[in-house]
């Protein structure tokens, strides 16, 4: 669920579309846009304080086979919330391994790669100090 909440817009649906998985469902809770108040801590480790809100879309659905899927995704993304809830529900069915292989694994790999690229760019800006001759000889 954490993976789907942060995935790029539309990407999960793109990966899901070619899978041959039946996805009939009824809404338990229609997609709804709202906010979550993000908290920080004073000094990083002290008392919590309110930092500001973040937009979030949530929904819940029930597959015709009965499994319930929930989704909370960052941003205003009703379509992505639907896909995320559908995947959450399908992960409780026989289709779990297919969805894992077809959607979740590649999504995790893409997001890991994007983070790794950023980390390598940051690493290239790491300062290497060297000491000049101090003139004591």
């Amino acid at each position, binding site marked *: 669920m954490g993976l789907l909440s942060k995935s790029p817009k539309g990407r999960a649906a793109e990966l899901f579309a070619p899978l041959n998985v039946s996805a009939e469902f009824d809404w338990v809770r229609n997609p709804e846009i709202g906010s979550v*108040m993000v908290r920080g801590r004073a000094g990083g480790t002290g008392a919590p304080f309110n930092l500001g809100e973040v937009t979030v879309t949530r929904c819940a659905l029930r597959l015709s086979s009965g499994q319930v899927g929930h989704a*909370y995704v960052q941003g205003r993304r009703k379509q992505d919330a639907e896909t995320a809830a559908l995947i959450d529900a399908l992960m409780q069915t026989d289709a779990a391994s297919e969805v894992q292989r077809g959607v979740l694994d590649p999504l995790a790999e893409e997001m890991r790669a994007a983070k790794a690229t950023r980390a390598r760019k940051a690493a290239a800006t790491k300062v290497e100090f060297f000491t000049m001759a101090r003139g004591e000889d």
Partner: protein
Amino acid sequence: MYVAVKGGERAIENAHAWLAEERRGDQSVAELSVDQIREQMSLAVDRVMSEGSLYDPDLAALAIKQSRGDLIEAIFLIRAYRTTLPRFGGSEPIDTAEMDCDRRISATFKDLPGGQVLGPTFDYTHRLLDFKLAADGETPEVNERPAEIEAMPHVTGFLNREGLIEEAVDASDAPPRDLTREPLELPADRSLRLQALTRSDEGFTLGMAYSTQRGYARNHAFVGELRIGTVPVEMDIPELGFAIEIGEINVTECETINQFQGSKTEPPQFTRGYGLVFGQTERKAISMALVDRALRWEELGEDFVGAPAQDAEFVLYHADNIQATGFLEHIKLPHYVDFQAELELVRKLRREVQAEETLEAAE
């Protein structure tokens, strides 16, 4: 006599139509897309998100477009939109020690674990206009280096080990007071002050912070650590019964280390100021940390020396640019009746003074 008047509807409509045309500018120049603003004006987007108190880069970019680049107007639009959203809940406090850092520097320790990582900074640029940017949009190739998996502990943690710096611990995890849900009332505890400061106007906060450096509150601050990067946001989901990641945000965190001679209640040690702001907003985060430290005089047993930055009422009640601009700009709206009354009063006073003068001259 009060005379109710109506009018100006057509003038207002026409003014708004003209505003839309002026916003678009010369139509022979390509129109800016919201995506372009989000990607290429990203620090403006970050400012609008932080002072608008709503993390949503698409909305902030739209607000900047709509406001013709007037960032306070854009912040106003975001604040107004924010009030229309149902709130699903509050997150677990974010863990900045776990940040994926784009930038992480310390001005106090040269060789710190994790190193000094400059990131995409304006520092060390020559501040000369780059006319190549006007000519073409090419970007240089960015170098990469293998990233070591290395922890980046908070700098203040090292000082903690020697007991040289005050600890930032708080056992209570009670939900903090929220000034978006209740009026800002004094005395404000540190949590409430930090909320007010993180959404405060960058210019105001910078000015206040600068005043403490120039001597109005005697706080010599070092940037113990400045880090910019992404952190996950987790929230407890009642229908699931556990916490999940609901997103990821980019934040700037600044911890200052301030010299402290000791007071009646505290030993000589270093004290801390804290800044945490949405987006890549380091000027604001450093300013926030300095002002936070100045406002802590009471809990550290320092004297109130009358500095503006120590005065919570002064700082917190004037730091919000939407409140400020709302009150300031309302005076340009029709005040015909108020002014009529003032006019009558001044005329009356003048008549009285003139009458007295005539009387005196006659004597």
